[in-house]
């Protein structure tokens, strides 16, 4: 039994951290709450950064989740532009990049993740990653300048959305993906091929099974050299090759790190310390598997759970069915569950040809996931079956 903290400090002011702060207040916690964020902006929503904001349809303020006034009204002390660089669990103290130390009682670690970059490319302009609002605005400015061709490295969800948005702006787009099919490692090659077709339907020059050897240019990117020797001229390059959890600041703190902050099933890291969002790795008891999830829905729900865990020892495990959506072109792609590329896949509704279908995944006689292309209703129905631990046969027989 740990004691309930008198005050809670949250490190990381994106979706997980913000939801942690809000959950404390919603649950009636009256002690001081401090929200520390590395970025200068108040918490904002990231999904529009690859879609509406990047497309120019939204101004950045529409992506805001809150503002400093609202936070103040909720009694949340907001401290932005401050990066945590150290943690001392015995002294219960954080160190910030300014050298300042901050005493804490309860702590939520929600420092998220950052984009993987390609080595040796730091000096080139026109080269982008997309994670933060500042990243988005820099890329948007480059897209507005009317480049001849945009090259997207990596056909994961971010890469796919950037490609779709750039095509929506009428730009020529090449996508380079090292795997044989986009998202093949997530969805399997059959469904990965459908994603490939969707890109090609929309005029993307998609190159799969080929890596990027180097990016060349004199101060500004000029071309991308592929591993098969081919060269693609480009004046804008966007690299979307995954993220790295931000855990370096915890080194030597005694917090266990292994591709994320290791938590127990309830998101507890240490006495009165929890973690949530992209940075947290925890055993999800519903799947009997330790996972780190980089989705919006997880950050929101786990942020709230991690905060409540500090107030309630009996809260129990955090065991959701992971779920996310990705809007590409005119398709809403959703995936719920925990699928592997070699799971059995069956289309249960609609048709792949129409790009409007639901497919379920199974392994070991159990339904493991559902993929929907413009089928949100079905995804949510099957998601409920996954939550119930339904068999694959039951799921195949279900009619929605």
């Amino acid at each position, binding site marked *: 039994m740990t004691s309930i903290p008198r005050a809670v400090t949250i490190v990381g002011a994106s979706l997980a951290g913000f939801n942690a702060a809000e959950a404390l207040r919603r649950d009636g916690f009256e002690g001081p709450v401090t929200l520390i964020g590395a970025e200068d902006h108040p918490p904002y929503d990231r999904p529009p950064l690859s879609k509406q904001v990047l497309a120019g349809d939204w101004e950045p303020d529409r992506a805001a989740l809150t503002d400093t006034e609202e936070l103040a009204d909720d009694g949340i002390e907001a401290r932005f532009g401050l990066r945590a660089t150290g943690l001392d669990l015995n002294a219960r103290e954080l160190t910030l990049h300014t050298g300042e130390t901050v005493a804490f009682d309860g702590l939520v670690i929600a420092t998220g993740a950052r984009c993987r970059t390609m080595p040796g490319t730091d000096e080139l302009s026109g080269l982008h990653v997309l994670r933060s609002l500042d990243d988005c605005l820099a890329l948007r400015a480059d897209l507005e300048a009317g480049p001849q061709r945009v090259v997207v490295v990596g056909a994961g969800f971010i890469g796919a959305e950037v490609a779709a948005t750039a095509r929506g702006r009428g730009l020529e787009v090449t996508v380079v993906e090292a795997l044989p099919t986009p998202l093949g490692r997530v969805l399997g090659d059959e469904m990965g091929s459908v994603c490939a077709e969707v890109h090609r339907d929309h005029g993307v020059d998609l190159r799969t099974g080929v890596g990027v050897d180097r990016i060349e240019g004199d101060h500004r990117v000029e071309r991308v050299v592929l591993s098969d020797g081919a060269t693609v001229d480009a004046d804008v390059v966007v690299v979307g090759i995954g993220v790295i959890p931000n855990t370096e600041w915890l080194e030597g703190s005694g917090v266990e790190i292994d591709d994320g902050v290791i938590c127990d099933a309830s998101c507890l890291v240490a006495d009165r310390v929890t973690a949530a969002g992209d940075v947290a790795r925890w055993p999800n008891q519903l799947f009997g598997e330790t996972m780190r999830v980089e989705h919006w*829905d997880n950050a929101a729900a786990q942020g709230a759970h991690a905060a409540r865990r500090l107030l309630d020892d009996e809260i129990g495990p955090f065991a959701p069915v992971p779920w996310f*959506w990705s809007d590409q072109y005119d398709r*809403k792609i959703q995936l719920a569950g925990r699928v592997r590329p070699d799971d059995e896949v069956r289309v249960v509704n609609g048709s792949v040809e129409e790009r409007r279908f639901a497919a379920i995944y199974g392994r070991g006689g159990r339904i493991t996931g559902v993929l929907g292309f413009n089928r*949100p209703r079905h*995804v*949510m129905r099957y998601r409920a079956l996954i939550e119930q631990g339904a068999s694959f046969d039951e799921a195949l027989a279900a009619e929605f």
Partner: protein
Amino acid sequence: MRIVVDFDLCESNAVCMQIAPDIFEVRDDDFLYILNETPGEADRSRVEECVQRCPKQAISIAED
């Protein structure tokens, strides 16, 4: 309690429908329909969960 959905924001992700299928339904036309606009107090916690979990923050509760 009256449920208000900002349909300009709603993207039919159907999260609300999973939490409260008797109140929200995304149909085959991909649009969200509110099946019960004025649920009783017994449903309040579920509706509040829908408000919080909506990825587009498109749902709110009006007290009138």
